């Protein structure tokens, strides 16, 4: 199980949760805004999205060398370790984050994901309960916790009834959180205990109790808004407009991101998902990236094309890796085209081609209408 495959199924939910989560933890140590931040971290995030982890690591390390305490940077570093399948390093990073910023739920959540991968469900549970304690309305942590409870229950039953559940391959599918979305102006500022009313199940009295016990610190610079959906985040330096659309990706704290930017961001994500499904030999996911009226090569029947693709993807022995360089994306209305360099690697074949994908918007998705390589 790779960590990437872990991420995929929940990607949608992550999107809905993202809100506008940036600028967090700014000036944590110094008390001032850090403008340089804007130049680097989004780039790191982009590299992560494209699967270019070593490069991402390089950038984030460079960033952290000047701001070693920065929560966002360290969080991304943990994320990169996770993606690179280095759980020990990732755990170390997230653990340190929970120590330095105990009010942030995301590091706890990701710690739990890592522990769960290692079948350390009790540790995972503790971490998730901490995440919820710090942030009583944290939906993903709740869902993850539900999965952990189920796993622990199943283990308990095994012990109670001496079931031989060696075949219990029902691998957990915990969602890794990819952004710090709760924010705080200062390390010691606690999230407000008010649960969001965003339709999240907020356990009533007891769950809120621990958070209520947390005293908001009277830090003058901290004007903090936290909540998962549609949250606005404020930083001492810059005001970022809160976007009501849940689809908003983490945008740089540059002025208002325009619609086209958001669209091209979504297209980039569609490309990443497509390449990812291909790499995972997830034929279903791969084919789902294509529009119903996709122009098949040489006009071959859709069915024939699908089975050919299936043959070449799922039927291929060994590992497939599909990565791509920064795509050039142009959006016009409900159409978009993306041109990029694609790197394909499989046993016995590795190639780099320039590819153009034409996308059409279908609902909230971007689907491939045409695929051309040169």
């Amino acid at each position, binding site marked *: 199980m790779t960590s990437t495959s872990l991420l995929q199924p929940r990607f949608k*939910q992550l999107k809905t*949760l993202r809100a506008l989560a940036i600028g967090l933890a700014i000036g944590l140590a110094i008390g001032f805004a850090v403008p340089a931040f804007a130049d680097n971290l989004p780039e790191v995030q982009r590299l992560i999205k494209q699967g270019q982890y070593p490069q991402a690591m390089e950038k984030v390390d460079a960033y952290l060398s000047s701001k070693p305490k920065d929560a966002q940077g360290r969080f991304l570093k943990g994320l990169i370790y996770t993606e690179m399948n280095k759980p020990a390093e990732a755990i170390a990073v997230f653990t340190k984050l929970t120590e330095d910023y105990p009010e942030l739920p995301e590091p706890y959540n990701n710690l739990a994901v890592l522990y769960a991968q290692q079948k350390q469900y009790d540790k995972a549970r503790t971490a998730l*309960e901490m995440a*919820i*304690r710090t942030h*009583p309305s944290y*939906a*993903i942590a*709740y*869902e993850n*916790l*539900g*999965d952990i*409870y*189920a796993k*622990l*229950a*199943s*283990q*308990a*039953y095994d*012990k*109670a*009834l*001496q*079931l031989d559940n060696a075949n219990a391959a029902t691998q957990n599918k915990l969602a890794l959180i990819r952004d710090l979305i709760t924010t705080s102006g200062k390390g010691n500022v606690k999230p407000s205990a008010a649960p969001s009313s*965003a*339709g*999240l*199940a*907020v*356990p*009533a*009295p*007891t*769950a809120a*109790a*621990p958070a209520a016990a947390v005293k908001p610190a009277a830090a003058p610079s901290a004007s903090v808004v936290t909540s998962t959906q549609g949250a606005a985040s404020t930083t001492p330096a810059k005001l970022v407009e809160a976007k009501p659309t849940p689809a908003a990706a983490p945008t740089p704290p540059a002025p208002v991101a325009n619609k086209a930017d958001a669209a091209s961001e979504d297209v980039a994500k569609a490309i990443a998902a497509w390449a990812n499904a291909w790499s995972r030999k997830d034929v279903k996911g791969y084919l789902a990236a294509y529009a119903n009226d996709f122009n098949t090569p040489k006009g071959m029947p859709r069915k024939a094309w699908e089975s050919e693709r299936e043959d070449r993807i799922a039927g291929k022995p060994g590992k497939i890796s599909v990565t791509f360089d920064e795509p050039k994306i142009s959006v016009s209305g409900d159409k978009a085209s993306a041109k990029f360099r694609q790197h394909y690697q499989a046993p016995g074949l590795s190639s780099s081609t320039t590819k153009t994908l034409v996308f059409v918007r279908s609902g909230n998705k971007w689907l491939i209408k045409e695929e051309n390589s040169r």
Partner: protein
Amino acid sequence: MQGRKLILLGLAACLAGSALAKQAKTQTPVGKTASKAGKKTGSSASLAKLAAPVALATAAKVASTAPAKRLPVTVSDSGPEAQLAKIFKEIEGNRLGNALQLTESLLQQHPNYRLAHLIRGDLLLARTQPIQTFGALNGAPADKVADLRAEAVVRLKGYREKPEANFVPRYLLQMQADQRYAIVVDTKRSRLYLYENDVANGGRPRFVADYYITQGKLGAEKLVEGDKKTPVGVYHVTANLPRQKLADLYGSGAFPINYPNEWDKQQGRKGSGIWLHGTPSDTFARPPRASDGCVVLTNQDLDAVAKNLQVGLTPVIISNSVEWLSLDDWARERNDLNKTIDAWRADWESRDTDRYLRHYSKRFKSAEQNFDQFAAQKKQVNAGKEWIKVKLDNLSVFRNPGKEEVVVVTFDQDYRSNNLNNQMKKRQYWLREDGKWKIIYEGSA
């Protein structure tokens, strides 16, 4: 707003003695939440509580996800009953978070405690979905769940129904002074009671402790070899087998008892190898009915009991269902028997053979003789006696459990006469026939 309900009928049923029939109406999850992510959260619970004789449902909505505060870990060596009772009380009160913490602290003490694992499984599962029964796992093996449920039921009953202070088991009529403790087993209740011989208080049995036990797979009243039943009767510990000499199955130690005793043999009961012993290392406890006839304790309980066992002395009285006597009734029964026994002794000294023989049943049998042979021999012997002195020491009198009224009398007999002196340890079985106690067996012990 989160409308997830769950039902812990099965758990509550345990409390009510598994009267699952009277369920309060089942409630199902209500209200899908808008957020998919929220679906696992906030298991507010409505718990249908069963109380005998009529079921009543208390529905309370309490969220139980995040533990409010850690309860202190209670460590006690008095067995898990108190903790189990607390856990079920928390479940009844719909404080599932507390129940889970208590269960986990119990598991810290006894990591192999299967019943606690089952409860923990239920409590965790209840956080993700509504559960309807004890052992709510889909496809859980019914027999194993039933075993654990049975254990929970008998343990809680045992915990709630301690022997009353002014009542004693009818069987312990009189212990000899050096018998420091006696064991009484109630197979129906899966309970072992440890009594102290309170010599300072006239030899009154004083309740010390009670423990959960496992009996034979097929219950009590052993008759033949291999019937997987536990014998019922008056026995004593005959040996102490240390752990090092035992297979893992026997746990921390074993104490064989003298089944079949003289009475069993006369009744044609067969079989052997009935022990008190401990529990194998892979589990904290075994189900109420699981052994091949032995009485099984948890290792910690066996160790506690073992401290008080005297090889060759400590009585082990196994009963289907212990009869309890008030101290007054107990004292009367004891005095009656003491008088009867002393009358037998005095009539022996009288050299009046008929008076002496009226204490013997027509069905009397010793190892070698029936009543007629015995009577003829006594008449012949008494003819040559000028005087007889009989002294009884270290008398013990135990009533044999069961429908027939039988008591087991054991003593050191010091017999002197003009032509013969003899000391022996004698055991007699007295049977109540037509309202009178008669000796049905006697022999050296």
